[in-house]
């Protein structure tokens, strides 16, 4: 089974209400997607949010429309953290 890689998002991405970003995960180092793990009310959700690295976009919704929009607005900041960690000499 492929090893799971991750980068910590604690303290790097600000919370959106009760939504707290935990880490970004991937298995395939060449994957064009990573999974953003997050918690709601301090409890980690079983399904992550897909970040499309090519499109610099979060594909999934969380909570109401305002929360979903705010979460998606974090995509570029998370993208920077992930891409710099995976290919720092970019």
């Amino acid at each position, binding site marked *: 089974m492929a090893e*799971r890689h991750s980068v910590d998002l604690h303290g790097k991405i600000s919370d959106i209400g009760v939504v707290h970003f935990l880490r970004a*995960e*991937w*298995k*395939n180092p*060449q*994957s*064009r*997607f990573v*999974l953003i793990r997050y918690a709601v009310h301090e409890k980690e959700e*079983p*399904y*992550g*949010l*897909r970040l*499309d*690295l*090519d*499109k610099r*976009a979060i*594909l*999934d*919704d969380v909570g109401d429309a305002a929360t979903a929009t705010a979460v998606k607005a974090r995509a570029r900041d998370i993208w920077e953290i992930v*891409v710099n960690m995976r*290919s720092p000499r*970019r």
Partner: protein
Amino acid sequence: MQHIVRATTNSPCISLSRSYGVAEMYARDASRAFPTAANPAYVCEVDIPDPPPPGVTVLDPEIEVAAQNANPLISISYHHDGDMNFLLGVADPVGMAAHLTAPAKQPGGRGGAPRAPNLTIELETFVRALRDAEVLVLGPVPAARVINRHDVY
């Protein structure tokens, strides 16, 4: 174009791929949980006849974009002004970002400021759709048209 390039999620279209390899990559890498043998992702084979069933429209993104940019003299269109490796960066904007951002070469003596090549959403649409062997479907595909389902993990 927004659907293919920017991940607009309120698009009325569904993306399908003519390539099993592309579909498998999306199933393996783009699921909301990592697929396992006990909880796999799926690649579904869909057989859409010609003509398609009532209420179903199949669009080729290349044809749609080209049809709206058919005059190279008046349209910014999908032409770029980078070098021959520029398209590698469009196809893989993370892994080959250096090709995407390499300064566009300009004739000597003009004193132009260095800049990245022109990249339009039309060109991104072309390249991404070609890369993913992508077609778009409007309308519900009948369940009976799903002829195979493959586990991926």
